[in-house]
């Protein structure tokens, strides 16, 4: 028996596909998420919109909260560590969380280097804005990626931009003549072996979810139709006026993302979605997506 292999790490992400991973800050939220049909929860101290409002330094969540959430639900529990903070990651692994998100939503601990994720038995998910960034994280050992979007804004525009960039990158590599691959790898700053793999298979080597901006069922279906394997919903659920209903609606459309009649049915009488932010109104140094490289 072998534990912590690439297959079991990337395989868990495959089991999450077609599902919704919800940010939760306490066991009560976690229960609502599980009851709504979430395929996993992300245990946090504050949802991204509150982190954004609070400012200061955002760190790994209080381990007591994570532990309480792990005891409450039977679905996988994820938790975030700061970019480059491998000791927070060691602590989360020792606690037994099922996935670690090395996340730009927290304040980075290292401005040059991400965590070397191959050393861990617990799998990691990392954010990206384009294919090069995705492949750098996979090269470091991320077993799942997610496009970053702009967390805590309730604005889908950045999520769309990043998903399109990743999907366009994949289709370009798939059809590029072989002699162009090394130059492509150089230009996008990606490991050549992964560039070659995408050229050969025509798809990403790991599961890719969408994150950062989903606030409505239609947003979730949009990201699925653009090629996401599933969606992370951060503030979008527990900052809406009826979290349980919103959570169930997003779960349903993530399965039936191409079925407009189901999108219509679940979108009625949902109450208010979370308040949204215009990305242009956010000062450049407060954008979360530009954290990490």
């Amino acid at each position, binding site marked *: 028996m072998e*534990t912590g292999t690439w*297959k079991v790490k990337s395989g868990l992400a495959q089991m999450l596909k077609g599902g919704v991973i919800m940010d939760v800050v306490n066991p009560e939220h976690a229960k609502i998420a599980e009851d709504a049909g979430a395929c996993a929860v992300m245990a946090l101290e504050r949802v991204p919109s509150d982190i954004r409002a609070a400012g200061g330094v955002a760190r790994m969540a209080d381990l007591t909260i994570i532990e309480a959430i792990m005891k409450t639900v039977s679905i996988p529990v994820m938790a975030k560590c700061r970019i480059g903070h491998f000791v927070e990651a060691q602590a989360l692994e020792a606690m037994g969380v099922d996935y670690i998100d090395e996340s730009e939503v927290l304040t980075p601990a290292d401005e040059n280097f991400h965590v070397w994720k191959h050393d861990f038995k617990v799998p990691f998910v990392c954010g990206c804005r384009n294919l090069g960034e995705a492949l750098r994280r996979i090269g470091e050992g991320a077993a799942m990626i997610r496009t970053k979007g702009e967390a805590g804004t309730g604005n889908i525009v950045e999520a769309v931009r990043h998903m399109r960039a990743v999907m366009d990158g994949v289709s370009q590599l798939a059809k590029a003549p072989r002699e162009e691959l090394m130059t492509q790898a150089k230009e996008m700053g990606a490991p050549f072996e992964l560039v070659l793999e995408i050229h050969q298979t025509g798809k990403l080597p790991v599961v890719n979810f969408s994150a950062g901006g989903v606030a409505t069922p239609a947003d979730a279906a949009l990201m699925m139709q653009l090629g996401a394997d599933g969606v992370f919903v951060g503030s979008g659920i527990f900052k809406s006026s009826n979290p349980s209903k919103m959570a169930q609606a997003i779960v349903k459309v993530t399965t039936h993302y191409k079925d407009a009649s189901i999108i219509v049915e679940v979108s009625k009488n949902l109450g208010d979605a979370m308040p949204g932010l215009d990305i242009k109104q956010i000062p450049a140094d407060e954008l979360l997506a530009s954290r990490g490289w």
Partner: protein
Amino acid sequence: MKIGVLASQGAFAEHIAKLQQLGVEAVPVRLPGELAGLDGLVIPGGESTSISKLMRHYHLTGEIKDLAKNGLPVLGTCAGMILLGRRENGADPETLELMDFTVRRNAFGRQTDSFETELAVPALGEKPFPAVFIRAPLIEEVNGGLEILARLADGTIVAARQGNLVALAFHPELTDDLRCHRYFLDIVAEYRKK
């Protein structure tokens, strides 16, 4: 031969790819209408709570139960195995209760306890099967006429067949070995003749 793969949530695309490699038409099933004309059904790995809720909400639970009771071959892997079995004292999730065993979820621990092993499955031949167990369930208590297909070294039951139904605690859709899918298609062929 046309096989449906339940696509409520989970690794359904992986099963579809394996079935297509074996030359079979494979289609995703999200709504009851898509069950029409199937020769077999696969319930994939995923989150059993999530799949169970979506199945119930879109009226798939009763339909699948009826079809399976009338002989439709069904293969369940991991979450799919949970959904084929029974739960102790009505614990979550609500299952199809088609096979005579109770199932323990997350039986081996959390994700860091997930593992790969070479598993002896005599029904597939002498060569062991590369079995991937991810937050896997196990068959706890057998209450009926169940054919045990595989056990771990410590005796834990991780694969079983009961007539037209096959339950595997591991993920054949994540490996290149097609023998589990071929085994299931042989059962489908057998039931088509009936």
